[in-house]
């Protein structure tokens, strides 16, 4: 059991958790992820690591409530527990001096992009951070984004905050202004990452995307997360999660990510009808509060 030390809502259906997980905290590097399972009957899902504190033995993760597991996770509070967390998984981001880098993140994807942005800035890059969100309520971690970047642009679909438009509009604007961009990292919904690749590939800008395919074990054992990179089948969990955007078959990724859509909807509906019961059930499995320590 992994104790939640802090839980805080940071945007519409988006929550940030600080969790006691010393092994992961000691080893985590920018770009890596975890897999968690909330309870005995739970599924295993991959989630981003936003930061870690090796001294305190904690990791910070962020999740948007979309399916059942993320919805249940977002009902948890400080003092609650997560049954299983494993990580850090995947290869870390490549950190070196590229020159000018653009970090492009969609909403909760910002959590995944932040550690890489920080590391790239520390490596001497000029960091441009473009955060995109549907609306003002989905804009998350703005202060940290600003602290991690030399230039920050917030884009919203409806213009309710920052500038109106997609992240690729800003990217195109920057290119049109003649800005030289040496490296791009895009993290977010697949259509967003595909759109970024469509801008940068013809320009020959090296671009990495962090892929969120469906995973089970996260160690390369099942192959469920396979993606097509050029002509090669690769496993996002152990070969990624970052891949060269110009080689990614995004259509296939979307097709495979839709594989359990009906089941996911069924599971979420059941959860919403029994939310309190389900929460009580998993809380009954938590270790008893450390009364003797008081």
């Amino acid at each position, binding site marked *: 059991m992994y104790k939640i030390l802090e839980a805080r809502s940071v945007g519409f259906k988006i929550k940030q958790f600080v969790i006691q997980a010393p*092994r*992961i905290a000691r*080893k985590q590097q920018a770009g890596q992820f975890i897999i968690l*399972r909330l309870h005995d*009957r*739970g*599924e*295993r899902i991959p989630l981003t690591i936003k930061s870690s504190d090796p001294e305190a033995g904690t990791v910070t993760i962020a999740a948007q409530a979309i399916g*059942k*597991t993320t919805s249940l996770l977002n009902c948890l509070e400080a003092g609650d527990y997560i*049954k*299983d*967390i*494993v*990580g*850090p*998984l995947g290869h870390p981001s490549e950190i070196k001096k590229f020159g000018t880098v653009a970090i492009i993140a969609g909403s909760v994807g910002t959590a995944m992009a932040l550690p890489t942005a920080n590391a790239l800035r520390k490596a001497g890059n000029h960091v441009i951070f473009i955060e995109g969100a549907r609306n003002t309520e989905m804009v998350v971690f703005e202060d940290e984004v600003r602290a991690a970047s030399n230039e920050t642009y917030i884009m919203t679909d409806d213009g309710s905050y920052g500038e109106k438009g997609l992240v690729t509009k800003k990217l195109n604007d920057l290119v049109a202004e003649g800005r030289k961009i040496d490296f791009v990292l895009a993290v977010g919904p697949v259509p967003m990452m595909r759109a970024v690749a469509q801008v940068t590939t013809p320009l020959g800008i090296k671009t990495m995307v962090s892929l969120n395919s469906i995973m*089970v*074990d*996260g*160690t*390369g*054992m*099942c*192959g*469920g997360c*396979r993606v*097509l990179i050029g002509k090669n*089948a690769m*496993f996002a969990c*152990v070969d990624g999660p970052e891949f060269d955007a110009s080689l990614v078959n995004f259509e*296939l990724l979307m*097709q*495979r990510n*839709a*594989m*359990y859509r009906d*089941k*996911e909807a*069924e*599971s979420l509906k*059941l959860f919403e009808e029994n939310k309190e019961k389900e929460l009580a059930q998993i809380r009954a499995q938590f270790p008893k509060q450390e009364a003797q320590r008081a």
Partner: protein
Amino acid sequence: MPNKNTLPNKERMKIARTRMPELAPDVRNKSFEEVNLGLCAEAAKTESTRCIACSRPGCVQKCPVGVKIREVVDLVYAGDFLGAAAKLREDNSLPAITGRVCPQENQCEGGCLLGKKGESVAIGNLERFVADYERLSGQLGLPVNAPSTGKSVAIVGSGPAGLSAAGDLIQKGHRVRVFEALHEIGGVLLYGIPEFRLPKEIVRGEVENLRKMGVEFETNVVVGKSVTIDELMRDEHYDAVFVATGAGLPIFLGVPGEHLNGVYSSNEFLTRVNLMRAYKFPEYDEPVYDCRDKDVIVVGGGNTAMDAVRTAKRLGAKTATLVYRRSAQEMPARAEEVKHAREEGVQFRMLTNPLEFLGDEKGWLTGARCISMELGEPDASGRRSPVAIPGSEHVLPANMAIIGVGTTANPLIQSTTPDLATTPRRYIQADPESLRTSKRGVFAGGDIVTGSATVILAMGAGRKAAASIHEYLTTGEWETKAATKA
């Protein structure tokens, strides 16, 4: 020994082999309940009567872990079932498991003299009976550990190799901690072998026994990611490490259409169903493709393929078909599994090889374009190699396809342990006798050294490693027995 079997051999050989009671095929192919129901005490005693007590028992010679089978059978005959269990445990720390999953026909029973003319003694069934009897009696004959040596051993992987090494090392007085990447202990015994062949309660019971003996377990640790071998030795002060991470990455066929929705590796399909209990969705959260009233094909001829196809049948598949490129004779699967599968309504399509998977416009699998094969000259494996018959292409309808043709080495540990030598196929190089690797204090065994094999061979490697580790911890000598360079 009391109650010695005095029946003349001639009479013993007249007794027919006891049949294992089974759930009826049309009941079990809709259920995940265990197929074999186990022998009763009377049947076990009758079966033990059949043993003709060879002076040089072939059964013992052919057992990869050298279980003293003849003595076990004698104890069963004498009615001392707990004694028989204790005798088993001297060489095999997981008897309830091996009694269920060993390919006995190639091992102990294959060495039984009775089998030359008629049917061998049902050693596997006796082993299972004895282990189950002991468990249900609650009177566990757990061995006593030697006094603490002050040394500690990290075992990476909690499958059969890791568990059997843990059982032996704890008895020698070493501190033992087993690291597992998944959230539950058992490795392939949990995620790979289905409930109907090996109930998870049995695995949990054996793990609980090891815990009682003092073995520590830590789940959710991916060695190579969460911690490296070097860190285990330097920062966590383990004197030796045994790498028993098992078979790794699934092999796909590399044919067009393999990314269609509905195409799975057997590892993924079985992990979803066994470990994650997807067959109980939505009570359990993890989903799997709903193959009720659908056509399912499974590609391969080994135990994993057999497990997958029988699982698909149980999930309600309209047709569950095993597609294998060689003939039934070459199938590496256990004979009993093949028999059970046939009884359950699994269809066998031998000498058939998929060339391409076909799908609809939304990316869902609709069929497999296959070609018929014939057997040619023997290949490297000694089996006659399959050769495609020109012009025999045909389409098999399929909504789900499961690829169970084997695995390759998972590189996680090798790539994070620079001084660990690997084979050209990237398995870990270990001396076949001592299981020592190129790195001082590090041993490796099981599928990560040999490539995919069986539970009992992995257990044999675990025992060998334990003996070798004990020797190293006692003498402190390494150089003389370092891994031979291939």
